[in-house]
């Protein structure tokens, strides 16, 4: 009797507290789990929202991993499983050490990876950029910017994540045979101010011809530091991603080019393919389990048009 009352109480309380998810439980729920908080994922969210509009019978959400740690991501996954999620698309922070956790998730729900892959896990498919290809693309831009060779330094949040490693790998491979050398890669642990200070210190130290921003916030911090130092045009910049400041830098010529991914497609395709999979359609999965969404090079001639489309997308949130 006592237990019954307890159970009823617990039930009532949880219903009151989690009333909304309880209703959504009738719909199948899908989640996009990010690796960090960034505008990049705001754009992806726009893609998720588009998919949501097309599939109102699913409940879609974006979960932002604010601390950018594998531990936080693991907790988010456990919480999602506990709430009975049907499908997850995740950007893996620490893929090497998350295999077990991801396999656990994959045994209960449809698991995709996006943006950052975990190839050793039982994820069904990876939707995203081939970061190595993006690195190769960047290397091409670097060669164009430094036809006679030179020295570059790269800036990144952490080198833990595979997307960072693969981009660097692509750049190194693409620069083989050229006179361009990578002097150093500086990390900032996600602290924007530290990211900018790293660039300033590099400029003060001198001897560089080109700076590479590997993460989406690194490039704007490079832009800001280079401008503050009055070195626009004196030092080349090649970046990744499409932060507003990055695009501004491309427009005013401080940044030669930036390699952009298509996060809108990550979000949109993650959700629509999850829907397909849950509805029993597996035909979209290629043999290698990789759906590559190509990266684009944004430079002075196409930056205006790209800025417009970004503005539209971000305004829609």
């Amino acid at each position, binding site marked *: 009797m006592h237990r019954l009352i307890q159970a009823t109480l617990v039930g009532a309380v949880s219903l009151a507290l989690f009333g909304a998810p309880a209703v959504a439980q009738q719909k199948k729920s899908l989640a996009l789990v990010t690796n960090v908080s960034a505008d990049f994922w705001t754009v992806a969210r726009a893609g998720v929202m588009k998919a949501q509009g097309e599939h109102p019978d699913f409940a879609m959400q974006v979960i932002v991993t604010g601390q950018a740690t594998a531990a936080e991501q693991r907790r988010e996954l456990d919480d999602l499983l506990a709430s009975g999620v049907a499908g997850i698309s995740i950007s893996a922070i620490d893929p090497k050490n998350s295999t077990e956790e991801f396999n656990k998730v994959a045994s209960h729900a449809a698991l995709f990876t996006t943006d950052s892959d975990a190839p050793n896990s039982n994820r069904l498919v990876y939707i995203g950029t081939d970061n190595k290809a993006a690195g190769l693309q960047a290397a091409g831009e670097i060669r164009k910017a430094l036809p006679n060779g030179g020295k570059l330094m790269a800036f990144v949040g952490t080198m833990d994540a595979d997307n960072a490693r693969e981009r660097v790998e692509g750049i190194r491979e693409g620069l083989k045979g050229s006179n361009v050398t990578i002097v150093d890669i500086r990390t900032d642990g996600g602290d*924007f101010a530290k990211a900018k200070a790293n660039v300033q210190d590099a400029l003060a130290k001198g001897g560089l011809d080109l700076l590479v921003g590997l993460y989406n916030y690194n490039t704007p911090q490079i832009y800001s530091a280079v401008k503050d130092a009055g070195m626009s045009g004196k030092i080349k910049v090649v970046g990744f991603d499409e932060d*507003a400041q990055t695009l501004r830098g491309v427009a005013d010529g401080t940044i030669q080019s930036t390699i952009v991914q298509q996060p809108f497609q990550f979000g949109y395709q993650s959700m629509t393919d999850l829907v397909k999979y849950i509805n029993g359609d597996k035909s979209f999965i290629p043999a290698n389990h990789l759906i590559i969404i190509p990266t684009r090079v944004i430079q002075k001639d196409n930056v205006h048009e790209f800025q417009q489309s970004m503005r539209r997308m971000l305004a829609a949130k």
Partner: protein
Amino acid sequence: MARKDWGLLLLLLVVGGVTAILNPRFLSAVNLLDMANLIGLFGIFSIGVGMVIITGGIDLSVGSIFALLGVVFIDLLVNRGVPWPLAILAVVAGGVVLGGLQGLLVTKAKLQPFVVTLCGLLIYRGAARYYTTDATMGFGYSDDFDWLGWLASGRSWGIPHPFILLIIVAVVMGVLLHRSVFGRYLFAIGRNEEAARFSGIRTDAVVIGAYVISGGLAGVATICLVFYTNSVSPSSFGNFYELYAIAAAVLGGCSLRGGEGSVIGIVLGTALLQVLQNLVNILGIPSSLNFAVMGTVILLGVLADQPIVRRAIPSFRTLRPGRGTAKPVPGSVAPDRS
């Protein structure tokens, strides 16, 4: 300047000197001014946290205050079209209010400062992330704030504005702490709150004042930090900065037991921390060693201060009875009147 401050200055000069020998570019104007800028950014709020530490408290919340006030600030300017003077006022007032609330909880509800500000750290960070649904806030595609950005993070005569602001804040706070009645009360409370109360000091009001200063300076620092990075990621903006502030204050001679510290010490402590971060980059030490270098130097700095103290205390204790014997207390004669 106290002996401790000179010691810290010496440490700063030694570290700077060694770095300069290894790479002379450390002393280039560009590098020094870049560092001055960062010292300004970090020094402003470190002084505020130092005030709280002097009362015997601690403020763990400033890093999260930056995130919360930072996203609010950008939102007010970019999305809500609030005139900039009002937006700045709102942010500083926000810091003052948050600091005041923490002060009230510490004094009136008698909660421990560590607990109150730890909860602040969690709450403000969460509020900031919720406020923006975890999105990074930036000035985006608008150019309207370039000159405000210049005001908050630009340079005049080559001197970064945050550094100028730090000098102003340091002078004002230095006078407040070392010359004013309020400052005297802060030290008295930090050393013996009961005795201060028994001397008629409104101890609660003074302690709240310290938290208000910390919050207010955090508000001021928010504006400079926002224009330094131009965008605010609510989950990472200002992460760990409270620890930089505490480290700077401790290096600068503040005791976590309260009642000790100086503004000049805190500024020098901040400078040392920034020099350490800079030398990691200038000397090409792997970024991953950044924190390890910082921790080691703080530890050495604090240790260097220790043996003197440790040696002084026992000798003082054992000497006292001896002294008393050799020179009997002159007050031990009988009273003259009877």
